[in-house]
């Protein structure tokens, strides 16, 4: 028998240094991006983290309501309205008690961008020492796919349906990650599941940077059930979101933006939207609106990264 060809093991495996603390069979849909993200975080950051989170698709598993098949991490369930405020309390308690601990406030975009945004912004402004991770499935999935602030233009949801009076969402999505970076917090970044090495680096960096204060990670995590996508396309959707600049990957220290991946020839956004039924009613005109929005957002991001490099932010001196 001839010796078969072997490739080098993907370097991503080197980041998975810790045990997966989740039970094997838990209640996420097949192909759910959130599940991969949830299992990835403690394998990279370590199991010595405390997760807090709100009612959402992550809650049935994080709270163990799924026939007790859940995880070994410490978890603290909070209300959607006060997620970041609760995490603030936890982080302050650990600091006061002299316990070295990483508090991870883990929420969907509905909590982060809409319902719990006020106290998220407040925690960022006060520079509270914890990590806020928003998994972005572009809607309120757990309650049956309603639109959120991060649902993109043209997407159909149960509150922005396609019919005589509505053609899907007719508003642009907000750029939550950029908004958070503009709080000039120590660390803000975007990441997604097709680029797991990049995600791992950002998780580790956040764990390090939380000593300096608030860290925010915005992770694009497709929801095959709510988006009308094939479960096996989850990673491909992430990949195309990056390749079309629909979801650019960057990080910002104290608001200073740096692209962590640049796409030489971005593909038309249509190569991304074609993978999901939620965009299937979009015509050429709608695609132009979405494309223009993507281009505009990317242009602003590029402009800001140049400006931030030129104009120094007067930072208070380190004690």
């Amino acid at each position, binding site marked *: 028998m001839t010796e*078969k*060809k*072997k*490739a*080098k*093991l*993907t370097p*991503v*495996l080197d980041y*998975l*240094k*810790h*045990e*997966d*603390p989740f*039970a*094997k*069979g*838990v*209640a*996420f849909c*097949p*192909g*759910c*991006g959130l*599940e*991969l993200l949830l*299992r990835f975080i403690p*394998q990279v950051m*370590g*199991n*010595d983290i*405390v997760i807090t989170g709100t009612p959402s698709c992550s809650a049935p598993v994080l*709270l*163990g*309501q*799924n*026939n*007790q*098949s*859940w*995880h*070994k*991490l*410490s*978890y603290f*369930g909070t209300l959607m309205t006060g997620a970041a405020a609760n995490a603030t309390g936890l982080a302050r308690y650990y600091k006061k008690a002299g316990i070295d601990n990483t508090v991870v406030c883990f929420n969907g975009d509905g909590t982060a961008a809409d319902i719990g945004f006020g106290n998220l912004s407040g925690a960022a402004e006060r520079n509270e020492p914890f990590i806020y991770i928003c998994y972005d499935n572009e809607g309120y999935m757990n309650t049956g796919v309603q639109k959120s602030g991060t649902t993109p233009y043209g997407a159909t949801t149960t509150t922005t349906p396609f019919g005589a009076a509505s053609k899907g969402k007719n508003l642009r999505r907000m750029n939550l990650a950029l908004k958070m970076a503009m709080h000039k917090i120590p660390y803000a970044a975007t990441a997604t*599941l097709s680029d*797991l090495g990049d995600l791992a680096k950002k998780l580790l960096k956040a764990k390090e940077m939380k000593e300096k204060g608030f860290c925010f990670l915005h992770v694009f995590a497709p929801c*095959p059930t709510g988006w009308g996508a*094939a*479960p*096996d*396309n*989850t*990673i*491909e959707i992430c990949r195309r979101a990056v390749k079309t600049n629909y979801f650019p990957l960057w990080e910002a220290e104290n608001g200073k933006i740096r692209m962590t991946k640049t796409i030489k020839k971005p593909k038309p956004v249509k190569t991304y939207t074609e993978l999901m039924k939620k965009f299937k009613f979009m015509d050429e005109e709608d695609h132009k609106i979405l494309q223009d929005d993507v281009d505009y957002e990317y242009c602003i991001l590029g402009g800001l990264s140049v400006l931030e490099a030129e104009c120094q932010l007067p930072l208070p001196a380190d004690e």
Partner: protein
Amino acid sequence: MSSNVYFKHEGPWSDANDPLLCSDTGDWRTKRPVVDEENCIVCGFCAIYCPIQVVQMKGETHFEADLDFCKGCGICAKECPKNAISMVSEGEFVK
């Protein structure tokens, strides 16, 4: 693996000292991933992208999914650069 520190605590309706219960998610599957051992180049892409992290290396020669919990999403088959994984209908395995 490295040492893991668990916080001893009681959850809403379970005890951290109890063994974890696992739902029978393998039962959800309509298609199962079958690995062609000859074609597998042991790159590990299937393992890192599997949402439930049940694909593991088998004796340094190939990767294989734990069918007790694999939900049959097909991501491993799609992401395999050598197309060494095929999704085969569960019906084929019913005796």
